[in-house]
């Protein structure tokens, strides 16, 4: 009987760690703590030049405030739990992946190509199968935006395999 009780208690305490309120609070506190650590690496102004407070003091205070408020939110959530969020669908992860594709392609190949690839991935995986529309979204529209920004605003886009052809 005791064992059953202990097992139930263990499961209950374990399930706490998988609650979104715990995970979100843990992530915020972890990131804030890392940033708080970095504030100790900021240069210190010598007392003779220091006016008011040190440059690290204000961010430190903010980070401590964020950690304290996050802990408070977490303890409140034990009484009033957050609503359960639905599992994220595959289309979300594909969209997120398309961001990674965009960053990689625009950094190493071409900015314009990155936009075109992201547009075609998102549009296709969100359900668009008509080739003409895919071309409009991934080539014609970004091209219009590109030319518009380039001519009206005089913007110079970063060099790349396609952009270089335009600027040549």
């Amino acid at each position, binding site marked *: 009987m005791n064992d059953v009780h202990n097992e139930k208690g263990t499961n209950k305490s374990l399930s706490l760690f998988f609650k979104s309120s715990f995970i979100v609070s843990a992530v915020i506190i972890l990131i804030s703590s890392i940033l708080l650590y970095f504030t100790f690496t900021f240069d210190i102004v010598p007392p003779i030049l220091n006016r008011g407070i040190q440059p690290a003091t204000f961010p430190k205070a903010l*980070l401590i405030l964020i950690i304290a408020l996050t802990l408070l939110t977490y303890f409140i959530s034990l009484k009033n739990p957050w609503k359960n969020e639905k599992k994220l669908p595959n289309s979300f992860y594909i*969209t997120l992946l398309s961001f990674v594709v965009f960053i990689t392609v625009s950094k190493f190949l071409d900015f314009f190509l990155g936009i075109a690839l992201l547009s075609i991935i998102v549009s296709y995986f969100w359900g668009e199968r008509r080739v003409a529309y895919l071309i409009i979204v991934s080539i014609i529209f970004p091209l219009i935006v590109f030319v518009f920004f380039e001519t009206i605003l005089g913007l110079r886009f970063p060099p790349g395999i396609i952009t270089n052809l335009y600027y040549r």
Partner: protein
Amino acid sequence: MENLGLIFAPLFSYKLLIVLFFGTIFGLILGVLPGLGPTTGGALILPFTMTLDPLSAIVLLTAIYCAGTYGGAITAILINTPGTPAAAATCLDGYPLAQKGEAGRALGMATVSSVIGGIASVIVLIFFAPLLANLAYEFGQPEYFALAIFGLTMLASIGEGSPIKNLIAGAFGILISTVGKDFMTSIDRFTFGINELTEGIGFIPVVVGLFAISEMLTQSTLINQIFNRVALKAVKLPSIDDYKKTWKTIIRSSGIGSFIGVLPAEGGTVASLIGYAEAKRWSKKPEDFGKGSIEGIAGAEAANNAATGGAMVPTLALGIPGSATTAVILTGLIIHGVRPGPDLFREQPEFLYGIFGSMLIANILFFVLGFFGAKIFARITLVPNKLLWPMIFAVSVCGTYSLNQSIIDVWLMLLFGVIGFFMRRYGFSVVPVIIGLILGELVEGTLRQSLVIFDGNWLMFLQRPIALTFFVLSLIALSFPLIKRKKKNDKV
């Protein structure tokens, strides 16, 4: 008051009228499209405003703000999805009324009450902003610090959702503003050796990321969602009977919206919810609310549009934004070299009164365009998300890149998009981040300069009557959610 005549100046400038016309149309389109709205739209259009003179640029942004706030009602009534968060309360009665075959009547009431609310709030702006600016002449660094703190606490207390989460989001916004070289000592903070970060994190990557990119991620989770669309024949002007039922509600909501708008918070969203709740409380038929009550539509719509003028009061008079969209407008002002605050009222009255006049005209324009064009604007929602969002992404990327021609800004935009998505998923509003980011430099700068003046003695803040008043108001604002919760628990 001698400058009141300047309000009519935009009427005699064909250039401003053209800008107003296109700004209103663009605002309506943004308002109609769920997930976009005047904040995202304003942020995306900021780079384009560089081709305009300062007054035209701000007139364009304010026209988008006014029309975009109203535009959300069209989608709320016809497809039960608010085009903007400020139109959420409009869904409650707008859609049920449309389902009864009275979409035209619902839209007519939304249009009329929006215009009345909008115009009333511009009148508040015209009279109240110069008064507040005059008062601000008395403000020194400690007073501005206390005011900024008051603004942030208000954000927590009357913003949507959990007050503690709002405070965390606000603190996060201020933290973002500390990235880069410290403005007093030139010491690097959170730059991690990245040269581009020494200038700090720009406003546009954060706004576009938190609003447009996070919304794109949200839409990616809703691709199988089907909207039930109600057909619209034509927008109908409210009948005499409808006016009799709603005139008190419209006046009350216009007052509520203007007042809420002045306070730094989620302006229209909160105003419409309070306007709706008060309309229900004072109604002779509260049982009709949620089933297609015309008073419900009037209460919500008059309030959310009334918040537009109200939110411009602190933006122009103090340089403190009253909402996320006015934070974009404030950035527009700064980009164009205009520093909002008391001096602006003394030195450039023609500029300010040009904005006031343009807001009045924008309200009349969206009345005409909304009345005759609602059917066409409603068709814009037929553009499928699978085509719309990749296009918005292309504009977002190019727009963000264009301001500083920095690829780091684009990466930051994506990062804030992901952060914004998870914030919204777990109940953190992104609006306090924007306001915190805008107020961050003011909060830190005035605090540090005050401490220099006070020779490091914090207690000196309490010897300044205006600052002390703002601190007391901040405490009241912070305790307000606790009192509200206690009352709710007592009732239960």
